[in-house]
């Protein structure tokens, strides 16, 4: 079954894509991508924002926590990679409607590189 999953790239319900808890790579490009859209001072509308005081180190820690403990699913709409969603149980930022966001969505490429990560 494991071999079939590897070939298909599919996930069973509740199974995480990174069963061996590999660390994901947060590249400088990904950090810029996230800061431009989701940092507290980002002017980008319609995108979740991190709470004031967020740092790159804190972001990295939250991402690793979400990947290690979050619910995993295949990316959608033909996009490669996986999505991890984790509820921190406390506000970590704001949603697009301005309400408090407690969850983090992390998109990871098949090469374990973070593509984006935002509160919702």
């Amino acid at each position, binding site marked *: 079954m494991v071999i079939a999953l590897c070939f298909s790239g599919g996930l069973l319900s509740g199974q995480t894509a990174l069963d061996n808890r590999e660390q994901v790579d947060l590249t400088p490009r990904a950090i810029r991508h996230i800061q431009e859209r989701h940092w507290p001072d980002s002017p980008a509308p319609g995108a979740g924002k991190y709470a004031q005081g967020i740092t790159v180190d804190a972001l990295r820690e939250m991402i690793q926590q979400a990947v290690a403990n979050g619910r995993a699913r295949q990316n959608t709409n033909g*996009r490669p*990679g996986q999505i991890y969603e984790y509820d921190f149980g406390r506000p970590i930022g704001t949603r697009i409607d301005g309400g408090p966001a407690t969850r983090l969505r992390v998109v990871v490429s098949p090469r374990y590189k973070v593509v*984006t990560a935002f509160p919702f």
Partner: protein
Amino acid sequence: MHLDYKLSNDWKPDAALLDEDEATFRYSAAPGDIVLHGPAADFSTKWGWVPLVDFVLALHDIVAKLARGEREASFEFTESEARLEFLRKGEEVHLTATYAPGEIKTPLSELHDSAHRLAGRLKKELVAKHPTLGKHQLIEELE
């Protein structure tokens, strides 16, 4: 239904982006907005960051699913929890959005044709403005 796009004027692809993996390219390339409205609803975005190549590819994927007989499909925006929902009812598709009220009804055939016209226009504009993009596999696939 009117379907179009607005490419961000200040976006320029950096050389390294062309060498990035498909996921990174789809989430980053050609940011802008989608224009999508009907008589009773306007689902156009005003965010400036919607990756348009990704949107077109995703729309093709959704149209193909609906054409194969799947009743529902969803478009997840890349940087928020916002979604466009597609519900097939016979030969019609009913569109709703989580970020705007109302509903757009369109024949599946029109959605298919609109998606392909959109892809063609986007490819033409991107290659004209940024010729290096024309060699990228995902841009070549736009039609």
